[in-house]
């Protein structure tokens, strides 16, 4: 069990919190990916 995690409540809070942060990072990253995808010679 990772440090500071003793109960299921703490485990869920930690892991879900990390996933929320990752999900927001993904959404921001996807905008950059979309711009990269469509910056070519001619938009397809």
């Amino acid at each position, binding site marked *: 069990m990772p440090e500071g995690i003793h109960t299921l409540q703490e485990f869920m809070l*930690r892991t879900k919190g990390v996933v929320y942060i990752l999900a927001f990072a993904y959404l921001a990253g996807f905008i950059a990916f979309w711009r990269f995808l469509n910056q070519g010679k001619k938009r397809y």
Partner: protein
Amino acid sequence: MSEEAVAVAKHEKRSWLTPFNVVMGIILLLGLILTIRRFTGGLGSVTNLDDTSPWGIWVGFDLYCGVALAAGGYVTAASVELFGLKKFHAAVRPAILTGFLGYSLVGFALLYDVGRPWRLPYPFVVSQGVTSVMFEVGACVALYLTVLFLEFSPAALEWLGLKRLRNVLVKMTIGLTIMGVVLSTLHQSSLGAMMLIVPSKLHPLWYSPFIPIFFFISSIVAGLSMVVFEATLSHKYFSDKMDEEHAASRDVVALGFGKAASMVLIGYFAIKVFGVALGNHWDLLFTGWGAWFLVEMLGFVALPAFLFAVGTRDRNVKLIRATALLSVLGIVLNRLNVTLIAFNWTLPLHEKYIPNIQEIGVSVFVVACGIIAFRFIVTRMPIFYEHPDYKEAH
């Protein structure tokens, strides 16, 4: 017989001895021998399967990879018939044919893998077992195979000249496509759901409560990549069978499907990372299994996503085609990891299942049957061209 006639006869005789025919002939011969061994001596005579590993390469490769790689049928049909992307129309028939043959071979391979193959219809007529995920997979695969047969039938009926029946089936296209998408969504994810029963056997980096979603999303990637890969091979070996529309659509399909694949792959990569985060398995990434997981994730998911994006951005069709192969290999690697490599991961190597050479031989035989059937159909039926009688039908 004149000299000329003898020369023609000799040429005709030689023409059968092409490298393709020789290789396929040898594979078929060995496959028939293995088939006799399998059905006379039982599973133990040709496989390394046992009670610890009752599922081997016939499930991991023939079924799991076969179903994923046959997803091009529903992906392409949905793009064209449901989303109205008619510019990909030329890709529909080859994709449906690939899907139909893929699913047929899954059923064919199951006859070898199931201990008592004559009981395959039992879930429908004897004991339904509707609470089992496997019932759902079996029912959907059987129904979807029927749907694919009906979707493929117009090409065969045009070849046979049965216009009336062909027209009836063409009118059913939208309904069949919807059925295909529904059934594929169900069973592609259910193949992953079957792994929910083995949380202690499958390595935690591959096991996740979200594995059905992983399987469904990756099947879309498999379908898109497989259509591009199949088109590359078809243009190399069957270009003489293609009409102008089909030949011209080659790059359009590659660019469109490459772009879609890059977006789906980047989403797939993200949800796989979410899976690791939800299990709090970050520490496992620094183990040997973690390194192997990273090879799959970075080399066969993130890299193809990036290369598809670069190929689409620069309109580099060659890069997209090469990436399609990488992506297909990635899906195969994922399915083999889940079903074989990372399965029973706690067992020492000498107790782990390693496929027998004869099992691999049967899998090669099954793939060879598919290639021969594909070649037989595309050289006779209007797959890569519009039948002259129906040119205005689309």
